[in-house]
């Protein structure tokens, strides 16, 4: 077997203590990655159980109504708070961001380690809540239901409250790192677009997450002491909870998607071997999305009884967010023009993203328009839209990024053939699972239903079959990635011919990231410059 660089961040220093007390952003990123992947598997098992139950095979149930409600709550809460929010920033971002800006580490390495342990601590609460009568409220914890149900809402929300701090600290660290630790010569507009994406995300993390913390603490106080802020019987207002919750949770959707957009902005130039089209438009649209994301929360409440005029304003602002997202899609598309396009696995995920995210974004128009939202709200149409954006968008970008930086993380390649098979299965399975849900929803199928009328059965069955294809794709992926981790072929420093700084060092990189002080010879996407010739193969 070919050997890895003699001294790299994985073996320098050795011993388990050097890992759990590490201040190295790469090791912290990889520890995050391990927990995030475990959360993804757990949330995925719950997803498969939901689909299996909804198959209603021969009219039978797999579980009771109460269990079903707990299973979909756990699926949502685990996927959102334990997997997707930290997935790209905390795992891939931690690993790559300092390397991309030519720094040795993030600005506050100790804070970085603290944020990891806070994440673990929060995850322990969330998992404990599963064992102690899991919450049955849905991941949105709407009052007054969440204030009155006798399941373990407190430990789950406390877990989410703690996880919020992990997210805030990661965001804070990234903001300072981007401002202060960029290498000499790397001006704002020479930063890779993934860094722009993480920067925009970090701003939302720092500004919005505290509101979620406050909201959940109020909910916990409501349950423990009956303070009556949301309880109508004591003059409280359950709708107030929805305002508080979505004031965080809508920006949170952009915490989830902006880093994904950043990854796609890296993958497409590398695998098309072409300068990114409209660099500044992509960078500024990230900031525009981050700003607008704070102003659209009311579109979750068009049928909650809020005033029609509030509905009008939120609807209008919601449509404004569509513009910067659309600009990004057109820029990525234009980058392919006159490129030299490779179909390596990361690029397959980028193509999947382009298709699925576009559908996810376009179906948002049906929900942003007030009159059609009335019919589609709280149906499977929303479930499908959300999964197209979050799974078709963020998860595809995450998988693309995971494959793209995998050789950099471990110094080993994965099996390209099986990676392609898995990418195609995931794409096909995803569409079968979730496109059917657009039709289910527009036909009136409400979400969070344990039983449903017969007219919806065949579409539900198709969706469940799709989930099996999706599951098979992920099993294949797990097998070849684990194989690569132990036995994969050694990777070169720059297997894809990338121009960003992380590709100038070894795979895996040395502890201090760069053996020599890095210099900026070319921009991150300068595939048209003579200097770039001879990079990669």
């Amino acid at each position, binding site marked *: 077997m070919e050997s890895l660089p003699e001294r790299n961040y994985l073996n320098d220093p050795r011993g388990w203590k050097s890992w759990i007390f590490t201040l190295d952003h790469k090791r912290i990123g990889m520890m995050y990655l391990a927990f995030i992947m475990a959360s993804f598997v757990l949330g995925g098992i719950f997803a498969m159980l939901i689909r299996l139950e909804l198959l209603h095979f021969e009219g039978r149930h797999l579980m009771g*109504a*109460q269990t079903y*409600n707990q299973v979909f709550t756990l699926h949502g809460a685990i996927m959102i708070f334990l997997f997707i929010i930290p997935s790209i920033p905390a795992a891939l971002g931690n690993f790559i961001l300092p390397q991309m800006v030519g720094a040795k580490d993030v600005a506050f390495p100790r804070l970085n380690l603290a944020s990891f342990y806070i994440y673990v601590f929060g995850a322990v609460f969330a998992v404990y809540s599963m064992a102690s009568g899991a919450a*049955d409220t849905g991941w949105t914890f709407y009052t*007054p*239901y969440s204030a009155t149900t*006798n399941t373990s809402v407190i430990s789950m929300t406390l877990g989410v409250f703690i996880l919020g701090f992990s997210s805030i600290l990661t965001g804070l660290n990234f903001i300072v790192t981007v401002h202060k630790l960029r290498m000499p010569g790397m001006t704002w507009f020479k930063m890779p677009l993934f860094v722009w994406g993480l920067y925009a995300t970090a701003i939302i993390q720092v500004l919005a997450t505290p509101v979620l913390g406050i909201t959940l603490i109020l909910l916990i106080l409501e349950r423990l002491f009956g303070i009556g802020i949301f309880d109508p*019987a004591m003059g409280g207002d*359950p*709708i107030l909870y929805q305002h508080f919750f979505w004031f965080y949770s809508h920006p949170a959707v952009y915490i989830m998607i902006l880093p994904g957009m950043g990854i796609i902005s890296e993958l497409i130039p590398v695998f*098309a071997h*072409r*300068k*990114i*089209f*409209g660099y500044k438009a992509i960078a500024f649209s990230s900031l525009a999305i981050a700003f607008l994301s704070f102003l659209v929360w009311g579109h979750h409440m*068009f049928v*909650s*009884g809020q005033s029609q005029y509030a509905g*009008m304003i939120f*609807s*209008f602002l919601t*449509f404004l967010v569509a*513009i910067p997202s659309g*600009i990004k*899609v*057109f820029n990525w*598309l234009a980058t*392919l*023009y*006159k*490129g030299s*396009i490779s*179909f390596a696995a990361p690029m397959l995920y980028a193509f999947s993203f*382009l*298709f699925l995210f*576009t559908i996810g974004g*376009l179906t948002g*128009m*049906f929900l*942003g*328009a007030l*009159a*059609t939202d*009335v*019919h589609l*709200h709280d149906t499977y149409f929303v479930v499908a839209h959300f999964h197209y954006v979050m799974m078709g968008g963020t998860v595809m970008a995450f998988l693309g990024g995971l494959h793209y930086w995998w050789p950099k993380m471990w110094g080993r390649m994965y099996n390209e053939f099986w990676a392609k098979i898995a990418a195609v299965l995931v794409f096909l399975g995803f569409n079968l699972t979730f496109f059917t849900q*657009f*039709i289910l929803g*527009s*036909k*009136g199928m*409400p979400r969070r*239903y*344990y*039983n449903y*009328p017969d007219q919806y059965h065949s579409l539900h069955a198709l969706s469940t079959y799709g989930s099996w294809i999706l599951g098979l794709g992920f099993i294949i992926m797990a097998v070849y990635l684990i194989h690569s981790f132990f036995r994969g072929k050694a990777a070169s420093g720059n297997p894809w*011919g990338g121009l960003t700084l992380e590709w100038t060092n070894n795979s895996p990189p040395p502890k201090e990231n760069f053996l020599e002080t890095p210099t900026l010879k070319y921009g991150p996407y300068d*595939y048209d410059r003579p200097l770039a010739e001879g990079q990669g*193969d």
Partner: protein
Amino acid sequence: MDTTGTLFMPPGHSTFAGEVDSLFYFILYAAAVFLAIVVFGAVFFAVRYRRGRKTIASPGPSHNTALEIIWTIIPTILVVIVFFWGFRLYLKMNIPPKDAMEIKVTGQKWFWSFDYPDGASTVNELVVPVDKPIKLLMSSRDVIHGFFIPDFRIKMDVVPNRYTVTWFEATQAGVFDLFCSQYCGKGHSEMLAKVKVLGEREFSDWFVSGTKAGEGMSLADYGAKLYISKACVTCHSIDGAANVGPTFKAIFSQPVRLSDGSSVIIDENFIRESILSPQANLVAGYQPVMPTFQGILNDRELDALTAYIKSLKQ
């Protein structure tokens, strides 16, 4: 108007169903054009500029102001159109006509009750005349529920401690589904009702006879009807299976353990008290989730349900 439904939408049976569908299909076609541009572009470039043995990319443009303005302006115009269209229709769907007949809707775990202006009331069955605007004044007695009639394209949350309003005008006689759309716990997917749209004559006949329901039936037969129509069936089985609440099968004059550890024999008064103050005698092993039916059932209806439960000997 299309009454059979399309690939995406269910049949439409209210005055604004057709307009909602028009907007839906306008967005759908516009979205299809955009998706086609993205897919066609990506596939064309991927094939045309696929990588051969060597990685050689000709330097393409890194921006093009005219193109970028075009792909900003056209979507902006489109979303402004969709916004105004959606808003105007939404206002129409939210402001009931002055001459609308008003029905009070109450949601609670896990059934719907409907109170008519003259004092008649129904459970899980909203009976309305065709071609007449109906205003629904809604509130909840416990958690938030959602009032959703897919065939009418209307939905509105039903909230405790405040009223919400929606309205519709049915265009065709028939029976339509009414779903609870806001998650409300274990019985959420059982919180179903039917909307019965009657012709004008049938409706006034129903309205008159509604107050005389159960005449000419034995108490137990009437009770069997009420077991369905007053939504007992949502939580209590008659086949011996435990559901949200205990079964009704063969329980009369049998002993039952209560949650405080005591044991009582089920008699007529036990049944009556369990309906009117459900938390007074909680059967062991069940959650205190049943709402009171005080004010929903009259004395004759209580008699009928009691007789029905007595009749379920095996």
